[in-house]
């Protein structure tokens, strides 16, 4: 792996956008359940959207692509998680106070500053993922910071916004969205582009995730937190990488992206030196009328089917040039063509014989396109209208290869750990006021309350170190849903943290594996168990026995202690026990004798001190 200084030489710039769903009861601007329920949709709504008048007439490539695709959007609606607000059939209700409170807690946790008045905004969305064609969002925090590894990374902004719809299906003409997820409160945290290496990006993402987790008010599970990474190098482009499956591979993916941009810079220079140029697409169906190439033949069965191709002057050998393991410039261009609904492109750096093209067909193609030595060509097959769009998009990308590295939104290939093209990066987000909701004044007291509830990752880590004294358990507890309960138990009962952590993390897991429903044990019951342990009414071994009986409250704990005779034998009673039953040769055997019969009632340490 390259060092930070290597990345500095490359002009590496990197910032994160962390999106975290909040665990509120309701959605951000309506009273739908904010917890996904995995139920079946009850109806569907079909809509079409269009990019509305552009701000200052600037053409946004991303919006233009989407409009040209002219896709139909279908929204699946759900009984408990979709209402008229989500379906864009009713104005938003008031901002969810619970979500705002949590957002402010997060703002305070990063030492950021909350504005005097929150201004609800609409951010235009062109991919149909919101039936209203915009996402509601508010700037809630500004200018904070995050301490990690002795460095301070700036937090530019914190937003409170609506989650988008989940995608169910998509092809060239239709996208189906599930509108259950839409509108769940989401906090977005943006860092400054101050991250110096892929490894540091991973660490910052981890730290932010941890801070969010510590608030105890965020959703957990797959998809509840998403990390987008903005990366660029000198001479490269700003690329937004979305869709990291897990943090573990984040650094590897960023490294691949840097490699990709470096490779594309080399290709660009080579294309420029060759004076490369992309020619407009032409219809080459006549040349391939009787082809044996399966995918082409299938397209031509459609009466509207066609094959279209473009001459790429000076591109020979570069379309097939590897830019990442298993990825070529041709793969990048294919990604653009796919936006129009074709499967991809076929290009002349591939083994065309393997597709089944006859030599005379290829000769005919070259002649028709005017391909010469040093040139390449690419083609798409399908419905004529789709082919025209596909090749128009592919041509844009091919031409860009000679001019610049395009700014893009890219996804992650979880196997190859490389990034893949998703869509052009939207230009500056188009924002305008959400006039259906009034501005929300923030009173100073509200923010002060949030400050009191602020979390401090460093402090929590130090406390866990002091209490648990076991690196592995500390790390496990830090990320565990039991963290809140753990802190409550050690603060209230004074029980030793090592034992509490071991019970909450390890003993419960063992019991769960035996099929015991330990998750039914209430926090109150757990607290009472450790109270009794702390005041020496029971032993550590008895705790395990009690949790396997699944007490539902403090009374239940007492009942189990009494009925199963789990009271600790100590002091004079233990001395008496040793006198009566402590037979055997030597200390070890005496202890073994007693413990084998009174394991749950006798504390080993105490017995050890007593037996001489």
């Amino acid at each position: 792996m390259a060092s930070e200084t290597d990345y500095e030489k490359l002009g590496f710039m990197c910032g994160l956008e962390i999106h975290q769903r909040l665990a509120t009861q309701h959605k951000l601007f309506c009273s739908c359940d904010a917890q996904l329920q995995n139920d079946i949709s009850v109806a569907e709504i079909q809509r079409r959207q269009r990019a509305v008048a552009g701000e200052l007439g600037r053409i946004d490539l991303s919006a233009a692509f989407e409009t040209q695709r002219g896709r139909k959007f279908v929204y699946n609606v759900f009984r408990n998680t979709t209402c008229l607000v989500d379906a864009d059939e009713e104005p938003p209700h008031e901002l969810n106070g619970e979500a705002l409170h949590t957002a402010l807690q997060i703002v305070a946790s990063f030492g950021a500053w909350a504005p005097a008045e929150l201004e609800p905004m609409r951010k235009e969305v062109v991919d149909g993922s919101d039936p209203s064609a915009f996402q509601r969002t508010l700037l809630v925090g500004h200018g904070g910071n995050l301490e990690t590894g002795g460095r301070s990374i700036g937090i530019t902004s914190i937003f409170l916004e609506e989650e988008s719809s989940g995608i169910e299906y998509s092809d060239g003409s239709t996208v189906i969205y599930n509108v259950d997820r839409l509108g769940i409160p989401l906090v977005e945290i943006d860092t400054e582009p101050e991250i110096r290496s892929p490894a540091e990006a991973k660490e910052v993402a981890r730290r932010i995730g941890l801070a969010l987790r510590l608030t105890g008010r965020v959703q957990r599970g797959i998809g509840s937190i998403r990390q987008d990474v903005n990366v660029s190098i000198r001479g490269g482009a700003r690329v937004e990488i979305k869709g990291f499956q897990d943090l573990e591979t984040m650094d590897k993916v960023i490294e691949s992206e840097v490699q990709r941009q470096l490779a594309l810079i080399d290709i660009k220079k080579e294309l420029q030196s060759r004076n490369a140029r992309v020619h407009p697409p032409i219809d080459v169906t006549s040349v391939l009328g009787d082809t044996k190439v399966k995918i082409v033949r299938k397209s031509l069965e459609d009466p509207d089917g066609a094959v279209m191709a473009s001459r790429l002057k000076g591109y020979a050998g570069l379309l097939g040039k590897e830019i990442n393991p298993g990825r070529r410039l041709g793969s990048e261009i294919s990604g653009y063509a796919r936006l129009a609904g074709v499967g991809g492109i076929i290009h002349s750096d591939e083994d065309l014989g393997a597709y089944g093209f006859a030599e005379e067909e290829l000769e005919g193609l070259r002649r028709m396109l005017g391909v010469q030595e040093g040139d390449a060509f690419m083609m798409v097959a399908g419905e004529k209208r789709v082919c025209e769009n596909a090749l128009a998009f592919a041509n844009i990308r091919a031409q860009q290869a000679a001019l610049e590295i395009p700014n893009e939104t890219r996804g992650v290939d979880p196997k190859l750990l490389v990034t893949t093209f998703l869509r052009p990066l939207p230009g500056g987000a188009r924002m305008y006021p959400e006039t259906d909701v009034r501005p929300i004044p923030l009173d100073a007291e509200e923010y002060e309350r949030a400050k009191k509830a602020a979390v401090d990752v460093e402090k929590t880590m130090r406390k866990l170190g002091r209490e648990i004294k076991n690196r592995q358990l500390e790390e496990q507890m830090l990320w565990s849903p039991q963290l809140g309960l753990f802190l409550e138990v050690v603060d209230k009962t004074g029980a030793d943290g090592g034992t509490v952590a071991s019970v909450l993390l390890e003993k419960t897991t063992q019991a769960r594996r035996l099929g015991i429903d330990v998750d039914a044990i209430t926090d109150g019951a757990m607290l009472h168990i450790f109270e009794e342990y702390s005041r020496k009414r029971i032993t550590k071994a008895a705790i395990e026995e009690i949790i396997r009986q699944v007490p539902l409250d403090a009374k239940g704990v007492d009942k189990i202690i009494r009925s199963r005779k789990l009271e600790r034998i100590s002091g004079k009673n233990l001395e008496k026990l040793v006198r009566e039953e402590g037979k055997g040769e030597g200390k070890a055997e005496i202890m073994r004798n007693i413990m084998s019969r009174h394991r749950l009632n006798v504390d080993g340490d105490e017995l050890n001190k007593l037996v001489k």
Partner: protein
Amino acid sequence: MYSQELEALLNKKGITPGDTVRVVSKGKTFEGILLPRPEFGDQGALVLKLRNGYNIGLSIGRGAKVEKLARGKEEFAFPRVELSRRQGLPDITLISTGGTIESKVDYVTGGVHMVVEPEEMLAQVPEILDIANIKVINPMRKASEDMMYTDWQVMARAAAKALSDSHGVMITEGTDIMHYTSAALSFMLSGLSGPVVITGAQRSVDRGSSDAFVNLVCSAHLAAKANIAEVGICMHASSSDTFCNFTRGTKVRKMHTTRRDAFRPVNSKPIARVDVEGNIEYLEGSRRRTEEGASTRAAVGYEPKVALLKFYPNSDPEIIDYYIGKRYRGIIIEATGMGHVAVAPSDERYSWIGHMKRAVDAGMVVGITSQTLYGRVNPNVYRNLRLAAGTGAIYCEDMLPEVALVKLGWLLGNHKRAEAAKMLNKNIAGEITERTEVEWE
């Protein structure tokens, strides 16, 4: 408007909304475009549009600094279409009157423009120019709730004139009272040579999800080629952007505050269903276009001294005496069920019978409709109905209350009292149907 102190500060520095400013507040520095103060919120908070597009409200307390960095650019102009005539396309006239369909947000300042030019509205649906040659007239621009009968008179005259050289007429209007307008035009216009299609939007046209696009396109198709010569409303048939219903102007009502498909046919079917491709399916018999000899007439007389009264438990009938005193000429009562009002309540002061009779005796036309909206009123089934009918009140069949109100105003504006009373429960413009089918969609 900002607070007086803030306005004074901005004046002193020569700063106006639209300018780029730097604000230092509580030790933090912000740069952005100064926005006009939104109608609601803290007048002492300065609203900036930051470079990332977000707006932010900053409190300008002691020690805060505001400084002008650059003057605002010229106001953003919305794109607009150039209307030119193309051979082979039918001619239609668009009468634009205002409403949500012509509202928009200004992206630069974030201010809401309640109105845009019709040519700007059409720029959002450029495909409409491939459907017909559109002549635009713009006699007014107002929210529909501000409309009065005089506006209907203007619209009726304009529509009659437009039909003399257009294949059909489209009217864009705010949706709130659209069904009153459609009723008024249904009565005012007669001998129509083509369709008068009223449309609007439940979502403003600046939103990518606006229903205006589909409503405008479908309405243009109807106005350009439907074989219909009636007044009706063309709006979404469902929540989906698939097709619109064209419903007779006297049998349609806004039945939802916000949904796209708020306009529902009542006691009737839609006349036609139309999709964005221009496919028209005729569902209900209607008056057909006549190629020759049709000349649309507008009889725009209207008597504004008519009232719509809702009967409800404990409602005090003395309100009728108020209208008698104010020399009103007609009252439509929105009664319960088949047309009931209180006739023998435990406190007899609340009986409506005497007051209704007094109104009829004073020369007013009194009509009875039902607040159930669906179904027909009947003067005979119960004794109480017969008592109410005995006052001389006229039972208005399956006519909607609002339609009856507009009809009565129109009748009294164009006819003598006795004639108006006779015509109130006779069908003129499809407002009364003689038979109701067992089921309809």
